[in-house]
């Protein structure tokens, strides 16, 4: 069977145009009556329901890298891909237990609001905006480079052109429609992705009498038992522990995910959002391995690696095998929508850090009217969009896997500890917060540079100075130690008093930002 990759495919382009038109129409329809303010720009007016937000969270989180990368990993490495997939779900319950409700009650536009709510605004917003931006930018570059390659392969559009298309379409949603448009793009994308993957898995399982066990049997008979057993992913308990910490607590520090909690009216809806998001994401990671295993049985390993290294094309190839060119076209359009939705969410998180935390709150000390705040938000979004396209082009052909590790590690080691401590620890002070953010963020950054992912894979050295791929086992405790030392050395009496007063807002939701005051 011949695979039609790298040449313009009429169905793929047709589906792609349909998806773009559909999202434009829906975003125009929902945002036509939207209030023109910075608050609406960042939160969509705060009237999104828990169910809608759950879908949007799933749309924000399930990236093309997850869909294509994990199915490819299962196809080539078997069971190791399944172990990896499990790691992506365990952050969600933790987000629910520790952060979701207090975050909604204490914040306004971004997680930095929560940390800054009882500490000194200037240093806190600057520090958390910097680490927030570092996370968002690393994540963005990984997404942009991946998407450029993907679109090149699927639609036959040159890499640079693909980057520009992603950047432009994304900016059209975000600059004009803000959070409300982004939310709907993410909802539509989540529905398309879940639908596409379901059809793919059902068609695949139909080849095996709708019995996953038969599928495992075929995998074992063709490639041996090793495919169903763990290979080299988990090297030892410390490596595994560190990876788990990064995946689990990294989610609790991703600015674009945390930001979505301000789109719902109250803590109860925030809670519901997490349940729905966990349901959709859990379902997604349950069926993705089926796609991977079916691909390797029906297509063969050689065929998959021939089209793209890392097996990224396993799912689209399986789509073509099972449903012909039209289904391939549909799946390609879904992958494209996935990229757009994730980058749009990242753009808003970057805009809130740049425009609200750095420019309006810190540089202008909050002295700006609504028009100026909104303008700053839009300009920041544009700057982010141009930077994303530029960085995507600059990093062309680079191995960017370490950037995802970097994003999750910094998120887990600087944003998450600051957020958690500001919610639960009375004695947390401004100095403690800044020290914690610095200790965690810097150590994560340095250890990633010294890790095998950069030292060996990227730079081609024999061995790495730091033996583990994820630095969280060191950097996360360092963040807590830094916060502790700073808070004990330079206590903040005012912040301790505010902590008590704030409890009514934190636990009862009294005085939190409502849907109407945005």
């Amino acid at each position, binding site marked *: 069977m011949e695979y039609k990759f790298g040449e313009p495919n009429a169905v793929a382009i047709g589906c792609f145009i349909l998806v773009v038109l559909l999202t434009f129409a829906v975003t125009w329809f929902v945002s036509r009556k939207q209030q023109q303010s910075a608050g609406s720009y960042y939160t969509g007016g705060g009237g999104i329901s828990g169910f809608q937000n759950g879908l949007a969270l799933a749309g924000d989180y399930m990236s093309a890298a997850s869909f294509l990368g994990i199915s490819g990993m299962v196809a080539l490495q078997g069971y190791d891909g399944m172990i990896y997939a*499990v790691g992506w779900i*365990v952050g969600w319950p933790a987000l629910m*237990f520790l952060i979701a409700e207090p975050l909604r009650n204490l914040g306004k536009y971004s997680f930095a609001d929560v940390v800054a709510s009882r500490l000194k605004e200037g240093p806190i917003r600057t520090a958390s905006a910097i680490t927030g931006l570092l996370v968002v930018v690393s994540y963005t570059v990984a997404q942009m480079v991946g998407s450029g390659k993907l679109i090149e392969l699927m639609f036959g559009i040159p890499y640079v052109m693909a980057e520009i298309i992603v950047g432009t379409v994304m900016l059209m949603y975000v600059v004009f429609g803000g959070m409300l448009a982004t939310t709907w793009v993410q909802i539509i994308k989540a529905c398309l992705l879940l639908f596409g993957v379901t059809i793919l898995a059902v068609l695949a399982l139909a080849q095996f009498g709708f019995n996953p066990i038969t599928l*495992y*049997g075929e995998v074992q008979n063709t490639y041996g038992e090793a495919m169903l057993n763990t290979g080299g992913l988990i090297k030892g308990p410390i490596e*595994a522990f560190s990876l788990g910490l990064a995946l689990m607590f990294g989610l609790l520090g991703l600015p674009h995910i945390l930001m979505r909690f301000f789109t719902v009216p109250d803590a109860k809806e925030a*809670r519901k959002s997490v349940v729905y998001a966990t349901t959709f994401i859990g379902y997604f990671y*349950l069926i993705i391995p089926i796609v991977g295993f079916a691909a390797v049985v029906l297509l063969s390993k050689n065929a998959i690696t021939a089209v793209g290294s890392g097996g990224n094309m396993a799912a689209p190839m399986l789509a073509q095998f099972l449903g012909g060119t039209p289904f391939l076209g549909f799946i390609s359009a879904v992958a494209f929508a996935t990229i757009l939705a994730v980058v749009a969410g990242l753009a808003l998180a970057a805009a809130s850090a740049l425009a609200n935390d750095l420019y309006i709150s810190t540089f202008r000390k909050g002295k700006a009217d609504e028009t100026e705040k909104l303008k700053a938000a839009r300009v920041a979004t544009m700057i982010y969009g141009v930077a994303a396209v530029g960085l995507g082009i600059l990093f062309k052909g680079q191995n960017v896997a370490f950037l995802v590790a970097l994003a999750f590690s910094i998120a887990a080691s600087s944003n998450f500890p600051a957020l958690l401590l500001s919610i639960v620890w009375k004695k947390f002070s401004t100095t403690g917060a800044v020290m914690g953010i610095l200790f965690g963020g810097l150590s994560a950054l340095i250890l990633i540079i010294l890790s095998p992912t950069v030292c060996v894979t990227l730079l081609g050295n024999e061995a790495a100075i730091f033996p583990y791929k994820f630095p969280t086992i060191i950097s996360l405790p360092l963040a807590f130690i830094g916060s502790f030392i700073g808070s004990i050395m330079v206590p903040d009496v005012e912040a301790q008093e505010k902590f008590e007063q704030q409890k009514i807002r934190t636990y009862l939701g009294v005085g939190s930002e409502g849907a109407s005051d945005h």
Partner: protein
Amino acid sequence: MQELLNSDRFKNLIRKRWTFSFIMLMVLFFIYYGFVFTIALNKEFVAQKVGTYATVGIIMSIAVILAAWFLTIIYVIWANKVYDKEVEELKKML
């Protein structure tokens, strides 16, 4: 408001909330790290067959995803039944 802040009822609610959260987090840690450490330390056990083709490892990975989902459901049921009720009562004191 000060009265509410100092009331035992409010303090109990906060304590209950975090106790429950941290117990749930410990359960999550136990399940996920139990899974990962079993793979890291006892590869023979994970490779054991359940039936003809499925392995203990495959069953475990599916179980962990389902367990993560159940934990969020349990938390929401608890929050709706226990926590929210207290919150409504306490709000009346304001």
